[in-house]
């Protein structure tokens, strides 16, 4: 402390100068018009740069949060899209003028035809395999997130799998690259549909089986394949992939055709997924149980 005081005393002139000049600076920019303008511009430039940098840093640390919020937005959009696809015709003429949410709340007549059917839960793939004959995915969403077995797992690019086992915070999904996978998919252009299976081998190619034979000439490579909607799990018209080969007769069942489908979702690189929750699953299940009895 004594040393500091001595230093101050020794350089008293300089220290005084600093304080006096600071004081002068303040009154100059406060009471002189031209200097005030120059100072305002200068500080704006430098302040702006500084703020920009600060923003970049905070943006970086906020990226995780932003990604999560975007995933939530994606969920809600996917839900709205999936629900819009199952809407019935009475709403058609007012589709663009009335928002779905407002009608759903108040209009009891239309409500039945336009009720939402799907809800989306976003999640991440924690473990994935593509090399086995039966592949599985571990997903960081579980019972507490209202995930249950037999829910579909999709990504924005395509279909990913079906939930089979659920714990409190995680779930295991059967990948589409699994020998037991059967997903009803349709060829949008020709209206044909069949079931999508994986026959092993190339993890980016699946086989669409059980296509009626009269579509033989109309199916061309490049045709889009999407989910058919004849399923409780997958919402209608979710992308699956594209046809890569001309249809050929099914060796096991010559009355039907098979086509090779290139998956639009690269299964070796799947991270952000949504779990599709059908809001009417219990109701549909109890209804189905009657025909089994």
């Amino acid at each position: 402390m004594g040393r500091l005081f001595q230093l101050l005393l020794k350089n008293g002139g300089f220290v005084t100068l600093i304080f006096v000049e600071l004081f002068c600076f303040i009154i100059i920019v406060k009471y002189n018009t031209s200097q005030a303008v120059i100072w305002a511009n200068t500080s704006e430039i430098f302040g702006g740069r500084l703020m920009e940098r600060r923003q970049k840093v905070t943006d970086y640390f906020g990226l995780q949060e932003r990604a999560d919020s975007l995933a939530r937005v994606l969920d809600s959009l996917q839900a709205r899209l999936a629900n819009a696809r199952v809407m019935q015709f009475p709403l058609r003429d007012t589709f663009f003028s009335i928002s779905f949410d407002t009608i759903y709340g108040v209009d009891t007549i239309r409500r039945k035809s336009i009720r939402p059917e799907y809800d989306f839960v976003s999640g991440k793939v924690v473990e994935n395999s593509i090399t086995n004959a039966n592949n599985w995915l571990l997903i960081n969403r579980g019972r507490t997130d209202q995930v249950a077995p037999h829910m579909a797992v999709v990504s924005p690019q395509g279909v990913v799998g079906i939930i089979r086992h659920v714990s409190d915070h995680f779930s295991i999904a059967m990948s589409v690259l699994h020998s037991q996978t059967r997903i009803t998919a349709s060829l949008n252009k020709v209206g044909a549909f069949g079931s999508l299976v994986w026959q092993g081998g190339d993890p980016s190619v699946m086989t669409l089986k059980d296509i009626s034979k009269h579509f033989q000439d109309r199916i061309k490579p490049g045709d889009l394949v999407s989910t058919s909607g004849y399923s409780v799990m997958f919402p209608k018209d979710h992308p699956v992939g594209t046809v890569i080969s001309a249809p050929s007769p099914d060796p096991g069942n010559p009355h039907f055709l098979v086509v090779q489908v290139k998956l639009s979702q690269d299964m070796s690189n799947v991270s952000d997924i949504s779990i599709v929750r059908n809001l009417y699953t219990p109701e549909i299940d109890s209804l189905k149980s009657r025909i089994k009895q």
Partner: protein
Amino acid sequence: MNSIVIPNLWRFVGMVLLQGLLLKQMGQAVHTTHFNVLLYPLFILFLPIQTAAPYLVLLGFAVGISVDIFYQTPGVHASAGAFSGFTRAFVFAAFSPKGGFSTKEPIFSPANVSWQTYLYGASAFFFLHLFWYFSVDAFTFVFFGSIMLKTIIAWFISMIFVVLYAALFNPKI
């Protein structure tokens, strides 16, 4: 003590009034921004040589802010005055006789030091003061050329007054 304070007090009042009432009007009578005469830094130059640096800075600020009242530029002359108060020691160190100043030379005037030393010292001192003043006045080095031009012209004119003042009053203390 009074023998030191009184002359300096008179010089303070005299310089501020001379600068604020007469020299300012002279500068404004000539219709160009490059014609400026600043004489009040002489007050700082003529303060006793033994004055401690913090007092010099504060007195420089005081004379500057007084001139600012006449010029209606709060802080600009004050900043230059404080700066000159600080730099005076360096100017003296450069032009002091061998062995430094003694008590025989209470102030830096031609009566105490030679005319030559006085002119060299005053030249450097005024140049630094004027340069700082016009820099603060412009407030940006974008106009560096204009600042230098103003400084050099004002320096020439001011030096005439610096010589005249010393010749007329020939201050000893």
